[in-house]
């Protein structure tokens, strides 16, 4: 049995979802979108899945389209929230987890999806944050992700612009800012997985073809590695089957560079059982 990095990455994202959570992904987030459906079919069957820009509850899409508010994404859902129903629920604290990414992510888990360079005259104007600057304040836990860690430009010492709020910004901690959500809990990259003890990213898992030195080279902030740094657990047969059936168009791959997509893994001697 073999699998590719995009499949394993999505599985690693899916595993950050805990049973019975209400979970949301933003638009333009195919990896997070696929991961939520994988979790619902494997480790978290009782989760409440709120589908991206359709706000559909527990849909079973026939495929994941390359756009986030297509009607295919609400197929099988008995109900779709109105825009304001979703935002009200998130702001009053009834949404447990959200997936967030960014063109830049710093050690406190702040993300920048607005602009690289000075905001008044940006070097690169990114798309924008959607609802993130409010949602990141009140949603229970955040799973951050990026598939561009290796570029060296994504995990930075300080974001040029803070769109979505992590554990602290120059204006204060989450508690000082009056935010009711817990902030970033995980950061999953194509190189490994970070957690946030004491509000700062710490490397806890690596993909097996990546070294700590490579992670340090690609990261703009000082990387602390956990004492019990582990290899990301291989995907199970059920998890891989879920990825492939949820995402037959492989929209998840749009987030990866061509180089990353050549990373293929095999279950073999010396590796954990992937059954």
């Amino acid at each position, binding site marked *: 049995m073999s699998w590719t990095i995009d499949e394993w990455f999505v599985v690693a994202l899916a595993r950050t979802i805990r049973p019975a959570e209400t979970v949301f992904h933003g638009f333009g987030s195919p990896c997070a979108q696929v991961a939520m459906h994988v979790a619902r079919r494997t480790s978290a069957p009782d989760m409440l899945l709120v589908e991206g820009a359709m706000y559909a509850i527990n849909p079973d899409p026939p495929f994941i389209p*390359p756009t986030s508010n297509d009607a295919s994404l609400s197929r099988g859902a008995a109900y779709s929230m109105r*825009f304001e129903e979703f935002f009200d629920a998130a702001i009053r604290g009834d949404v447990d987890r959200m997936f967030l990414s960014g063109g830049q992510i710093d050690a406190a888990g702040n993300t920048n999806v607005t602009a690289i360079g000075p905001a008044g005259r940006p070097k690169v104007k990114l798309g924008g944050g959607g609802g993130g*600057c409010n*949602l990141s304040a009140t949603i229970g836990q955040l799973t951050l992700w990026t598939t561009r860690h290796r570029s060296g430009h994504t995990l930075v010492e300080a974001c040029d612009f*803070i769109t979505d709020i992590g554990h602290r910004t120059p204006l204060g901690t989450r508690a000082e800012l009056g935010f009711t959500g817990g902030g970033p809990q995980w950061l999953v990259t194509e190189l490994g997985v970070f957690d946030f003890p004491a509000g700062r990213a710490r490397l806890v898992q690596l993909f097996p073809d990546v070294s700590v030195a490579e992670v340090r080279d690609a990261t703009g902030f000082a990387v602390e590695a956990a004492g019990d740094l582990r290899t990301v657990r291989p995907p199970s047969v059920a998890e891989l089957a879920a990825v492939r059936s949820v995402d037959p168009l492989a929209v998840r791959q749009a987030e990866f560079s061509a180089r990353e997509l050549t990373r293929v893994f095999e279950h073999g001697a010396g590796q954990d059982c992937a059954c």
Partner: protein
Amino acid sequence: MSLHPLRDKRASLADAIALVPDGAIVALGGGLSARLPMAGVRELIRQGRRGLHLVGSAHSIDVDLLVAAGAVRRCEESYVGFEQDLGLAPAYRRAAEAGSIEVAESCCATMLAQLRAAEMGLPFLPVRGVRGSDIATLHPEYATITCPFTGETLIAAPALRPDVALLHAPSGDRYGNLHLEQPYVLDERFASASRMVIATVDELVSTEEVAAAGVTIPGHLVAATVVAPYGAHPASCYPRYAYDRVHLREYVAAAQGGPDDLDKYLATYVYGGEESYRAAIGPERLAALAGWSDSTSAWRELFS
């Protein structure tokens, strides 16, 4: 403005869009690839509108095309782009980087609060987030307030009352009653917060038909109804048609190419009017987009 009597509100696209003055605050309905008011957007360009202040949640070709045509002074959306699939919005990005438009990037939840304040006739509503985010620095109009009951510090976001909302619906009647399918995005909020609603509909139906389908936006909020078949294209307008990814890719390539390629795009698709637009897209392609419901494989084929 009082509510509109239920008179016959049918108008031509040109007459309806002529109600939008230069410099107006224009709310764009729909979002991303769904139910964008593209017929109205193209007509704004044909009429040479300038200095618009666009507001909306997450948008794509509607905003990018208006920016490309030089119609926009200020952009106040939460996102403008083509998602992971086709990437950044080329004209919007170029104009933002050159400083030729003001980018007042907003947040969906803040904009929702601002529209609700306008709907309720209140000067502002408080929001809990935003503090600590640099989004606040793009909005000097926000204030910080202390809750008189809990002592919490919150952001006060002023009411947002667009001059015009452009909304597209799959069907509606002559009195302005509109039926929408999900996602409604901010259309309902725009309808009651704005000074004027201009609706385009793929098909004009009887009041009985729109009532049976379900009235999402009532006629008393709508000033003009324009029949514009495929008026959301290349966005989707379910249940009628799926979005046209092939056309979006063509647009993005033209917008990335720069002014000459964009001029060619505008000449081919925009300047000739809506009938000429549909002819340029081609009846076979439009029929394929409308055939999304034939089978799951036909639907899926549109996305591959």
